[in-house]
């Protein structure tokens, strides 16, 4: 039963990392400086779920992962200036329980049991700017900084040297971590669109200081914007402790929109 639970958590966590973002001009705005409308829900099968608290305030979290690896974000819209929309994002990430779950002997042990994972969390703050260079496209850029706070020593050898995971936990080993990137998305026909984004993670005080992720996807959105499906790829480059590596991964997601 425990193995089944671990397996489910693993699938959800990994799929969550593979998935992301959205499309549609008005609603599917994750990754852009637009917030979703007030009282609208977006429930992702793999990606984080979002809720519009007000027209300019959005809450996001992953319901399934919330009790294991909670990551809560608030997105605040600050309005539009000369065609550029500005929002800020503020989040907290607590990976301790998830990391402890995979710190084990035998199969499923991603971290050696000789290491102790302390209580720790990270705070992320960033901003996003979006504009519409074409009628049916949104171009966004973002930048942010994350700091970690640890309540005990974390051995530098306890890293999980895998794409997607390593750069998101790197802030706990190399403080602070910067992220900067761009997102470009648009429609081909009303229900089909495309998405292309690039994310950079930059670390301080280490040779393993640069990680890049590029995602490309085709997106189907139902006419009433109640359902979205994404399929594409995620390309990752990183300067891992073992040296530079490329990874090419599938990216897919299903999202239900309510309201």
């Amino acid at each position, binding site marked *: 039963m425990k193995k089944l639970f671990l397996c489910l958590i693993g699938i959800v966590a990994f799929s969550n990392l593979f998935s992301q973002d959205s499309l549609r001009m008005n609603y599917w705005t994750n990754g852009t400086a637009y917030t979703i409308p007030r009282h609208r829900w977006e429930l992702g099968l793999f990606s984080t779920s979002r809720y519009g608290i007000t027209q300019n305030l959005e809450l996001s979290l992953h319901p399934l992962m919330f009790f294991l690896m909670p990551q809560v974000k608030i997105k605040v819209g600050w309005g539009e200036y000369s065609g550029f929309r500005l929002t800020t994002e503020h989040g907290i990430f607590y990976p301790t329980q998830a990391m402890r779950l995979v*710190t084990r*002997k*035998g*199969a*499923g*042990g*991603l*971290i*050696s*049991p*000789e*290491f102790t994972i302390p209580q720790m969390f990270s705070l992320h703050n960033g901003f996003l700017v979006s504009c519409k260079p*074409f*009628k*049916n*496209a949104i171009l966004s850029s973002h930048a942010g900084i994350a700091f970690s706070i640890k309540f005990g020593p974390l051995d530098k*050898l*306890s890293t*999980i*040297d*895998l794409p997607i995971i390593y750069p998101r936990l790197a802030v706990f080993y190399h403080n602070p971590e910067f992220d900067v990137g761009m997102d470009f998305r*648009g429609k*081909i026909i009303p229900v089909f669109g*495309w998405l292309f984004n690039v994310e950079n993670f930059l670390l301080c005080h280490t040779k393993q200081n640069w990680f890049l992720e590029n995602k*490309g996807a*085709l997106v189907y959105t139902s006419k009433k914007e109640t359902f979205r499906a994404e399929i594409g*790829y995620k*390309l990752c480059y990183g300067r891992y*402790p*073992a*040296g530079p*590596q*490329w*990874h*090419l991964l599938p990216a897919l997601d299903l999202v239900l929109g309510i309201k």
Partner: protein
Amino acid sequence: MKPLYRQFLFSSSLFYAAVFPLILLILVSSCEPLATDFPDIEGAHYYYAATTHPVPDTFSVIRVMTWNIRFGAGRIPWFGDACGDRVILTEDEVYGSLQAIADKINEVKPDVLLLQEVDINSKRSGYIDELQWILDNTYFNYAAYGSQWKAQFIPSDGLGRMDEANAILSRWKISDAERIQLAIRTDQDKLTRYFYERCCIVTGRIEIPYVKNLYALNIHASAFATDDTKEKHIIQFKDELDKINGEGGWFVAGGDMNTLPPGSDSTDYCIEDMCPGESFHHSYDDPFHKDGSDYTPEKHWLDALYATYQCAVPPEVYKTNQVRYFSHTTRGTHFWDRTLDYLFTNYHWVENSVVTHQDATKQSDHAPVSVLFVLPK
């Protein structure tokens, strides 16, 4: 003029149709599998020392040595082979062991060195390229290696990335180096087998001036197989030796065979190797023997090798004083208690020149074995 929307549609479709597949093609070809499977035979990887060291001009004998260096773990109680709880070593620990290994090599001064368990880029040993480090900190000029256990990420016990190799080091250039795949274990479930090591032989021609067709072969046979995999490895090893011998070549060959010499007094080490909490040899014990510690069924597996080629430690010499040739123990605080490391040739060893360097107790759980080889004229 087309509407902006159509222009954009065209350009984005073009982008997806032409550029993305190209990027994908390039990147798929650059991605490595999670765990590496090897062909039956492939070229080995060549390494070179940072600076070239001079080689003696005139000589009639060379010293050959074999050593399982335990990936620079020294005698640290590693979880996989020593009842320990350590998995990931620090850089300081690994460099400390490597320095002790290099010191011993520089003291014994072999001309051809067969190393087993050399980590190339493994998380457990701090991602240190141990082969390059040993090359750069000894007098060897050339090396060739083949990976024995290679996985991008092993999701068990925190092992992570693994690249463990068998290597041949030489003062002289190595050519025609190959990695020969040995039989895969059949006594493991598919998932374990996927991430597990794939034992191999590494061969190479040692380009000593005026000596034609001298080959070095390095084997690391299975340690823990409970089926007939290890026997297959020994048979495959002899087949390779027979091939060289049949073609008129000469060889120095050896490595960690993970089995005992014929005529060994003790063949069951379950009790010696037993970890706290384990129990063996009782009717209720399952397994009855510890995996890899009972050599009793293997008593005659080396007979054919001994009968065909010259072992550095001839059987009659071994039987007179077995303890002197013990080269391994699993217990970090104990003296060597069995012989697992061998050297064979189809030409001549210098009589009584073999040394099991039992003083090297800190560097590894194996002692190096060296012997003088008479060069064929």
